[in-house]
């Protein structure tokens, strides 16, 4: 039973992190190349564009929910399971979500990278 709690907690964390990362990526693509905008019209233009972007606020909300559900999940399960499992599953799930929702070209190179990094995070944080 406690396993079920722990893993559902982990999945909730992964879900909201992925939603947050994808929305943030979409928001920043809508804002545009920060370096180019700063060069062209100053840093306040970037701040204004970011703060007027609804995806940015949705992303920050999703990331906040992910953070607090991580705290909950940590209270249900061991740190040595929850932290690496949530971190590495987020990498894999993000690759799927970026392909589906952001239409990124996730080629073999990027799949291998996602899997290698996920495995590395398990070994490092485990």
């Amino acid at each position, binding site marked *: 039973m406690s396993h079920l709690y722990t893993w559902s907690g982990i999945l909730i964390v992964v879900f909201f992190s992925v939603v947050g*990362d994808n929305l943030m990526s979409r928001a920043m693509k809508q804002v545009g190349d920060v370096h180019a905008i700063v060069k062209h019209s100053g840093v306040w233009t970037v701040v204004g564009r970011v703060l007027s972007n609804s995806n940015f606020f949705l992303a920050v909300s999703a990331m906040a929910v992910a953070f607090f559900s991580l705290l909950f999940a940590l209270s249900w399960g061991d740190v040595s399971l929850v932290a690496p499992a949530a971190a590495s599953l987020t990498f894999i799930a993000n690759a799927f979500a970026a392909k589906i929702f952001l239409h990124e070209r996730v080629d*073999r190179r990027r799949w291998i*990278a996602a899997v290698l990094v996920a495995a590395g995070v398990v070994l490092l944080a485990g």
Partner: protein
Amino acid sequence: MLSHGMKQAGNISIHHLQGVILAVLNPWVAIGILLLLAFFASYMNALSWADLTYVLPATSLGYVLLALVAKFALHEQISMLRWLGIALISGGVGFVAGGPALTAHPHDEHPKDPLLEKSARSFDRAQGKGGAPTGAEAEL
């Protein structure tokens, strides 16, 4: 930094919320929060010109740095398994860094934005694939 400061601040209970404010005043916690903000700003900057699947593996280098700092500054022992983890992450980042940073979309979603158009054009020139045919978008 945050962890160091919070351990100095001690346990915080829900009945002593002023403890949270005292914790923020701890210089270690304040530096930790500033660094986290700086990380977030850099992350958003990177996402503005690169794909999410490019940026995320790159940010995982933070785990490697953390382990190396723990080894050389805090003199913690790093096991063989953790060295293997460091190697896997570095390898993964190397893999993704060898590829293109941004998916080239033939029809930009914001053609009216002159800044975006300009940066997209210069990016295409830099990548040497201006007006790449959609067929090139197929999976490898």
